[in-house]
């Protein structure tokens, strides 16, 4: 519950706000492996459909009207995976797609215009919830900022000296950092301090640690 609004942290590494019927996806980095290949790095080709279906499953199981990509949607310059992605989201004609631009989103604006994706720097929802790729500077204290960018992860120690590196949601003051949605992304490890709360993605659950 943030600013009186229910905010669901999903184990699929996404956020859902039921009141607004908004699904938030951060740092997908689509097209990353294809970009590597194009630049001459040896990576096996991976069907892009596998990644797209992960979004599809979410859209089918939740009453979503609007999807906000919290930046770093596409990894780098254009490649064929972008077209596959656009084609795929067209099959969800009842859903609006918005992107708050991130540092990786270097596709020219025309490409976004051709697509049905709306481009914004940041979005403010009712209840003072602000969505952006990186934290908004000088945001007043009564607002909540949902951001991505750093791919938060945490180290959890279980019994028998087991250690787990897991993606997590990270809440510090009024900033909630969302984990990266993309399968082929890394983790930036964060430590818990006094005024932070960490919600780790453990299998099919999100648990506070």
């Amino acid at each position, binding site marked *: 519950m943030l600013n009186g609004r229910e905010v669901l942290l999903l184990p699929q590494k996404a956020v859902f706000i039921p009141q607004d019927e908004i699904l938030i996806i951060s740092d997908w980095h689509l097209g990353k492996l294809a*970009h590597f*290949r194009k630049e*001459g790095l040896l*990576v096996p080709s991976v069907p892009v459909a596998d990644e797209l279906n992960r979004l599809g499953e979410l859209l089918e199981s939740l009453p979503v009207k609007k999807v906000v990509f919290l930046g770093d949607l596409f990894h780098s310059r254009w490649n064929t995976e972008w077209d596959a992605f656009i084609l795929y989201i067209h099959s969800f004609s009842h859903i609006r797609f918005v992107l708050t631009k991130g540092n990786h989103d270097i596709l020219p604006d025309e490409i976004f215009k051709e697509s049905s994706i709306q481009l914004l720097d940041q979005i403010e929802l009712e209840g003072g919830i602000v969505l952006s790729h990186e934290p908004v500077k000088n945001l007043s204290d009564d607002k909540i900022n949902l951001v991505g960018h750093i791919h938060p992860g945490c180290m959890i120690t279980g*019994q*028998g000296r*087991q250690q787990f590196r897991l993606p997590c949601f990270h809440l510090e003051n009024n900033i909630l950092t969302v984990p990266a949605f993309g399968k*082929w992304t*890394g983790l930036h490890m964060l430590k818990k301090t006094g005024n932070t709360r960490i919600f780790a993605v*453990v299998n099919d659950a999100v648990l506070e640690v």
Partner: protein
Amino acid sequence: MNEFAEVWFANQGWKPHHFQEETWRKMAQGKSGLLNAPTGFGKTFAIWFGILEHYYRQRDQKKNRKNTLHSLWITPLRALSKEIHKAASGVSDDLELDYRVELRTGDTSVSARQKQRKNPPHSLITTPESVHLLLATKGSTAYFENLEFIVVDEWHELLGSKRGVLMELAMSRIKAINPKLKIWGISATIGNLEEAQEILLGKNHKGVMVKANLKKKVEIRTILPDNIETFPWAGHLGIKLLDKVVDVVNQYNSTLIFTNTRSQSEIWYQQIITKYPEFAGILAIHHGSLSDEIRVWVENALHEGRLKAVVCTSSLDLGVDFRPVDCVIQIGSPKGVARFLQRAGRSGHRPDETSYIYFVPTNSLEIIEGDSLKYAVADKILEQRMPYIRSFDVLIQYLMTLAVGDGLDAQRVYEEIKNTHCFDSVTEEEYYECLSMLIHGGKTLSAYEEFHRLVLKDNLYVVESKKLAMRHRLSIGAIVSDVMMSVKFLGGKYLGSIEESFIAKLRKGDVFWFAGRQLELLHIRAMEVFVKAAAKKKGVVPSWMGGRFSISPDLGLAIRHSFRSIHAVRNKSHEIKFLQPLFNEQAKRSVLPEEDELLIEYIHTRYGHHLFIYPFEGKLVHEGMAQVLAYRLGLIKPATFSISSTEYGFELLSSTEYAIDEALLNTILSVGNLHEDLTSGINVREMARRRFRDIAGIAGLVFQGYPGKEMKTKHLQANAGLFFNVFEEYDSKNLLLRQAYDEVFDFQLEEGRMQLAFRRINDHKIVLSFPDTLTPFAFPVFSESFREKYSNEDWQSRLETLKNQIAAK
């Protein structure tokens, strides 16, 4: 007889050794060969005068005076290259010869390199990587056309690494360019000298072996604490013995203090300076991450006898001769007999002098290694260097190198590499699969329309993209390092480099120890860290990745021998007697095993249930045994284990409790199905994943970035773990992936030795004990910080367990 040598030796007032004369004779006969000689006896001159003699004899016969490259001298270390260059060009100067010798290493400026290409010297002193860089330039075939000699210095060092594979490949190419090429290697004594010779010279070679047969006196002493009771049971630092180490340093002229890691050397330096401020100015530090400027200063000061002591790492292991050094101190286990002797040889460098080396144990059980080292040296136990085979990562890099250079004639190069030891067993199909990865980015059958690396032109594969060629040249080599950041003062003075992961943990104003100085972090700009001298007393010490090797099997053998003598009645060494109270404590808390007994301890602590087993088989074998046992225990009851192993034993720690009794132990220690149980261990995948990191770097999968141009390549950054996952999921038969698994079985698990170990254990009587607390044997294993994981619960169910644990809190 060699005229040049005769004159020069007479001028110096020296008399040549027999092995030098022998080498000159063989070289005059046009032979290739391997010279086996210790450092400090003039092995460089043994080869060098052979080269000179050949050059002038040949020049007198030929009228053609065009300058071409006559010899290549390859060393594993830049510092050594400089030393050889000094010696060789000194000979040319002394005898007023026009034989021109130049250095070509990573430090050589671009303009000097271009000059070397246009107007080649007679001889280049260089490294394996630089030879490959030469092969990666246009016109390299013509450049090597008249090359008569390749000399590989410290061949034993290169042999057991992938840099040795680089040499095998380079030699196979140059031999094909000029069939008259003669190859000479210089090697210290190793367990498999014959094999080393065959790998260097090729199958069915007609080369010779020249052995120096010179004896060097070595005196080994162990520095013992005042009493065993207050000496720690675990640890790797050894700071407890600081005062005694300083006492030893004060007895000698000049001492090298060897540590096993760079951070350990920083800590030792800091501790000595803090406690003994009088050492300021006469104590220095030397390791691989420091800037050349600092290292050269330290090396020169050592030569001139201006330093009382230098704290160093393997960076001072090789070749270079510091005459004033008359004592060596080894902190912690040297991990190998050959390395220990090599380091000992850094003192008393002249033939008739004795080398003094002091061994400083870092924990109580390690004291026993003092006994083991003496035994190993007396018994002439020496390690073998195991060469790499089927290193597809290096092959892929090499094929790309040739394509960037004069172009790759696929079939011809296949014939050439088939004659190397490394790729002897590679099939044509495997070779073309490697090539196909470069051409199509994978197997030919898949559609890869976006991938262009190699293009076929006039039957040669070439690289057309300038960007790709440039990127490849930057990543040539078989040493994979992490992203390094340069540490600089505000004024711009460069101190050295630290891994990015360490810097990432620091904030502005934090103090850390580096290059023996206390530094405060000011700011970070791109890949540069700016610092100033700090006034604060406390600081952290950076840790560097890598450099973590386990004890060699041969030292392991010597350690087992020492443990056997615990129960001996007579002739116990000083070290063993000193350890007696510790063994008494072990007997009191648990059991002190006899020679034919296998001790097993099962202890419960707040961490969980610990199963300790002490086979004394060496760390590598223990790691494998632990995997097998974990797998077999997992069959009885699914569980996840955290595994730790040392030279003496290993530990399986789990939150799951087992009813341990003799029947169960007999089951899990049985010899049957060993191979199947080993391969079923899920952890092989984890080990392969770690191996894959280097493989991906060498094969060019992971691009490390242009130096100083970090931003532009940010979109290409990814860790090898990601590639491993992609390959496992979408191309599981890939050769590089298979190589990672093969390396695990050959180098990490050493299956053959493990079979023997299991058989040996089966003859032993099992002694099972349930101590209340950790025992002196158990403690070092328990506190090993580096642990393996094993689980036969899948990732999902392990996460389920974790979920329940968190929920229960």
